[in-house]
């Protein structure tokens, strides 16, 4: 069976969930070969094997952390040469898309970004994309070269499928461009202990209606009662009430959880672009005419300062 390269997104050896989803999708079109780069690359092998990687190609070098994007492109290109895969899959993060794009260009291949589903087709893998703020669904494929496809988080359920996961050292020689953009400083983001926004099964978001940074505590309390991640609209972020890393929408994160709860958010097209593919959508808004209500499975017209704390209490009571 044809091999499929899967780029591994990990932090010091801890593999992030979207990569495990990619391994599941990769098995529909071939045998997954994972590529793990940088500090802790070798530590990823066990979990990758458990999820179907027949082989794990690893390479550790300081360049991956010290320079932007290009060293990873060089490595994937080396992996492509070593394996001649039927496709290359990369998680759809901002960096993932840039890596995929440069790789595609070098391979003389087309690129598809932000696939939400993937299946085998007669002429290669067929990707489903959700476009125009999720108002259209398209089917596309790469018609030249090795398909390079980036896949959004939450596009497939993670399935265990134990495989050999044989670790092999990848040999990489860095290109002249590799050291072009130096990372001169790095401030890691502090962990809140809550799930990662793009990976969470439930997202609780607050918008302009939350009316102040301090009031986000009630949004957080609801999120914590559900084990959810916290999101925010751009209006709330621009007002300085919540960090930009939590922004949901076109210029923030795109989320696709099982449940999305929008509080004090009107539902502008740019916000919808980032959450419209959520399975179940719930909104609390005092304006019965707010466009968000066109999307909801369940909506409460009311003041979030009454509804949200009451909901949190009720959830706590029910959970005992």
């Amino acid at each position, binding site marked *: 069976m044809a091999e499929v390269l899967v780029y591994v997104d990990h932090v010091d050896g801890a593999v992030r969930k979207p990569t495990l989803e990619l391994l599941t999708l990769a098995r529909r079109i071939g045998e997954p070969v994972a590529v793990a780069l940088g500090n802790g690359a070798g530590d990823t092998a066990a979990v990758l094997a458990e999820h179907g990687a027949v082989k794990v190609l690893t390479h550790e070098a300081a360049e991956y952390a010290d320079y*932007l*994007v290009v060293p990873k*492109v060089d490595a994937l290109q080396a992996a492509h040469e070593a394996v001649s895969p039927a496709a290359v899959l990369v998680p759809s993060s901002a960096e993932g*898309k*840039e890596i995929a*794009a440069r790789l595609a*260009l*070098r391979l003389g291949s*087309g*690129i598809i*970004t*932000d696939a939400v589903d993937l299946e085998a087709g007669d002429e290669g893998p067929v990707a489903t994309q*959700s476009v125009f*703020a999720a*108002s*259209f669904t*398209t*089917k*596309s494929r*790469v*018609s*030249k070269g090795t398909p390079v496809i980036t896949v959004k988080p939450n596009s497939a359920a993670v399935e265990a499928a134990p495989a050999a996961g044989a670790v092999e050292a990848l040999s990489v020689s860095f290109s002249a461009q590799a050291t*072009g*953009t130096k*990372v*001169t*400083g*790095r*401030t*890691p*983001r502090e962990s809140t202990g809550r799930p*990662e926004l793009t990976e969470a099964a439930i997202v609780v978001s607050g918008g302009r209606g939350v009316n102040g940074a301090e009031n986000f505590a009630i949004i957080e309390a609801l999120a914590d009662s*559900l084990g959810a991640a916290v999101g925010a609209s751009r209006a709330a972020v621009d007002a300085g009430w919540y960090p*930009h890393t939590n922004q949901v929408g*076109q*210029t923030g994160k795109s989320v696709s959880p099982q*449940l999305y709860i929008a509080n004090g958010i009107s539902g502008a*097209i*740019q916000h919808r*672009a980032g959450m419209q593919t959520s399975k*179940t*959508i*719930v909104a609390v808004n005092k304006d019965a005419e707010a466009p968000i209500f*066109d999307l*909801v*499975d*369940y*909506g*409460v*017209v*009311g003041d979030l300062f*009454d*509804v*949200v704390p*009451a*909901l*949190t209490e*009720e959830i706590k009571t*029910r*959970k005992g």
Partner: protein
Amino acid sequence: MSLRIVVTVKYVPDATGDRHFADDLTVDRDDVDGLLSELDEYAVEQALQISENSDDDVEITVLTVGPEDAKDALRKALSMGADKAIHVEDDDIHGTDAIGTSLVLAKAIEKAGYDLVISGMASTDGTMGVVPALLAERLGVPQVTLLSEVSVEDGTVKGRRDGDAASESLEASLPAVVSVTDQSGEARYPSFKGIMAAKKKPVESWDLSDLDLEAEEVGLEGAYTTVDGAAERPARTAGTIVKDEGEGGKQLAEFLAGQKFI
């Protein structure tokens, strides 16, 4: 010293309009108003600020690849304060994908001459967020992308990239390709004076032959990707909407419990 900045700007269908596909599965541009992609206004703004903070002579050229109407996007950028514009227009470009678009842009950027290319973080229609990286790869220069802060001094570009796991400080020598996010600073509104001045600024039109490109290299024919189908997402079935009369929170909890979220 002088600094030549090329800002790539895209003309896109208005996101608040009713966007859809034409019969050939390309974006239908006839039925929806077009405009300068809002995220490219941030790129124009940063070019203007780099110019304002520089002791050098800075020349800002805005560049678009798009149909006839795309001139509107150039006019808007010129009225914000850019110096001149280049419009690459050719019927054969219709339906070009990201790989092809980056080819046309890279050829035009090389022909125009540049020290710095500034792009938006993503277009508001394709929203791929890949063109700046593709341009850096094609031009063989550093990519300093997704910046929420950018500055240029002594032939070096510096910036801050706020990623998922960390916030990074980046640095590269010119020439380079930069892209900026909507966190980089509000874009200015064109002044009346700016709008009047824009009418007199030069707009050059280039076609494929000006860029030594063949029709087969671009358009639907040259595309590296094929769209096989596009379907409108079925409208969501109308949800239950209740008015809070003291029980809203409890009712919502009941719904969530019914859906097994609690």
